[in-house]
């Protein structure tokens, strides 16, 4: 029951759902949630490969680093959200269109 394929399917589904969250929700924090989902899907993928394909622990290492990066990124991203809120008084994504045209 637990084969590489199943883990890959789970990580795929997780990735796609995370993508859907990123694309469809309008609050910046919600988008960050989607990003977390995506990152986790990738990490799961790495660990699954490390268990079923190669016999070393490189996948684990990579997952650990993914977690580290995700933490750092989430911290900075949320700092940006707070700053954004301080300026625009809202965190609706459609307010962030200063690069328009």
């Amino acid at each position, binding site marked *: 029951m637990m084969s590489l394929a199943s883990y890959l399917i789970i990580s795929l589904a997780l990735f796609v759902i995370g*993508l859907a969250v*990123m*694309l*469809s929700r309008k609050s910046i924090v919600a*988008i960050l949630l989607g990003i977390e989902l995506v990152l986790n899907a990738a990490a799961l993928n790495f660990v699954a490969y490390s268990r079923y394909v190669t016999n070393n622990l490189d996948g684990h290492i990579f997952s650990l680093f993914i977690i580290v990066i995700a933490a750092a990124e989430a911290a900075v991203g949320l700092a940006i959200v707070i700053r954004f809120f301080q300026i625009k008084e809202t965190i609706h*994504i*459609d307010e*962030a*269109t*200063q*690069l*328009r*045209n």
Partner: protein
Amino acid sequence: MEYTVGSIAPIFLAPVIAFVINAFFGRRLPRQGDWLAAFSIFVSFIFSARIFSDFIFGKFATDSYVHKTFTWFDLSYGTQIFKVDMGIYIDNMAAIMLLMVSGVAFLIHVFSTWYMEHDEKHGRFFIFLPLFTSAMLGLVLSDNLFSLFIFWEIMGFCSYSLIGIYNKKEKAGDASIKAFMTTRVGDVFLLLGIVALWMTIGSVSYVDIYAAIAEGKFAGQTVLGISLATFAGVCIFLGGMGKSAQFPLHVWLPDAMMGPTPGSALIHAATMVAAGVYLSLRMYPLMVLGDITWFIAVIGAITAFGAATIALVQTDIKAVLAFSTISQLGYMMIGVGVGSYNAAFMHLITHAVFKACLFLSAGSVIHSVHEQEMPKLGGLRKHLPYTFFAMMCCTLAIAGIPFFSGFVSKDRILGDALYFGFMSGQHPLMAIVPILGFAGAGLTAFYMFRMMFLTFFGENRSQQSHNDHHHGHGHKAGSHGHGHDAHEIHDEHLDFRSNVPLLILTLFTLGFWYAGTLTGQSFGNVFGKKKEWFKILVEAPKVEKFVNKPRQQFSGVDSRDKTELLPAEYHHQTGYAGPNPNEHKIHSAHTIGAILSIIIAFAGVFLAFLMYIKRVVKPWSDTFQGITTVLKNKYYIDNLYVDIIIKKGLLGFNRALAWFDMGVYDRFAVDGWAHVNRVIFKASKWFDNVVVDAIGVDGTGVAVNLFNLVLRIFQSGEIQFYFVMLITVLASYIWTLKI
């Protein structure tokens, strides 16, 4: 001597160098370079004398010649030969001519240094005079018709420049153009003849032409239906007619007197006008072959007589001399025409000497008195003794008085003409040649002595006129001042520049130099066994002797036939091309001719004496008013040319051509392009505005804007849209590249 470039070239090159130096640096040289010109001619004279002594005093044969060539250009291709050789051809005739030309030119240069001293055109005169001399010397040296033509044209140009040298006088300009144009008519025919010869023979070298005549290459060749020899002969003679002022192309020579007198002396008396005769002499075998010698003789006779009649009524000294030149040239042509080759050439030489002397003397008279019109002259015998002596001797020569050179040559011509006209079996109308010849001789004696008597005898009439005639030159340094009412006549001193040339020339008008004897017959031998040297050495070329003669390059060895002519030959030579079976008849013709010419000459002198010294007979211009008017207008030939032919005929033609050129051709071919251009302009304007500007320039902007509108969609600034794009592109990569 060896005939190399070093011994021949200085003859021709020394005056050219003088010309070049004078042309560029003349103004800066002291006396504007006249001494340089004279010295260069002296160099030529020395080399010419060297050649002359080699031919005449060295071992010789009568038909020896030096012929050296070099290839001017060779554009032959395969079997088509297109090669032109240039070179020198010196035989006895050329050697004598070289000596005469360079000697006379040198004396004239020396005289001109005195004559033109204070003239405003002093420098310019000495630029063209050496160039002219070098052209004449080159013409004498040249061995083919091409180089002859080149030098011919150079002389024509120098003549034009010298006639029109006083360029402020409108008449001088007109006269120079008239001279150039008239000789041009002749030159066109000359070139035509040269080309006709070249196309059929393949070469225009004299030697080749003689060889071709001997080999019969001319037989059967026709040009435009006329036999080649006749056509070429006539054309070449027409060139000679133009240059030697035969009727009807004689009209330029009287007007050429607008130039300075020494220039006229050299060009229109001694050398250039003799070039036509020289050419006819060189081409004599061709003329004989073409059977046009009778034509030459008739033209010569008409010219000789006609010019003599016009000279009877002229009042300007230089005009009298000009017409006498035309007349004597007519005699030379009579000589060529009747077959008297040797005498024609002798007359050329003797005429050059005494005519140059006459012109220089006239120049001396004009310089002293500042007056050209003979009614205003007179009694100059006391004032200008040396000039009087020189002019007297030369007038005796030209009139055909025995013991003088003119008698020797003219008598021989007239003797041959008498034989030709009456006894040689020609058409009876050919009798006109000797008749006109003798009549002309009588008239010559008459008008020349008329000139002498009016100028040097009687009372001086110049004091009677109050007119100031400025001839452009000032006084000789010293003695006499300039009066207000009349000119003082400068007495003549013996000056090496103004008198010695005259006297040297006078020396050579004595007959014995040429005939070898004092009387022209066997009496009074002067040169010993070489008497009649002139008659022996110069004879018509025997064309058979030119066949297959090898041609030498300039560096080759001299291969002349160095055998001395035996004295016995002298007695039997008659001056003709070969021994003549009619020798008895010729001899009797000569005897009759000699007696007749002496009688006629003395009659002419006597008549002039009666008319102008004794005043017994009234001057005939008073009695024959009608004829006098005709003669004064030179038989209205000038009017014929200018009024009728040019103004009525050619100008109308010119107008028609101009109408065609401007009305038709210019309108359509030239102006029509303006319309075409307008259309092209409109099309290009449309193209520029619409295609280039609207579509290209503005269009790119509009396109960019439009594209921008499209691209703007992708720059919405919405982050989620960017995500969408990213995913889409990534998916498309994976789907298309099948990763």
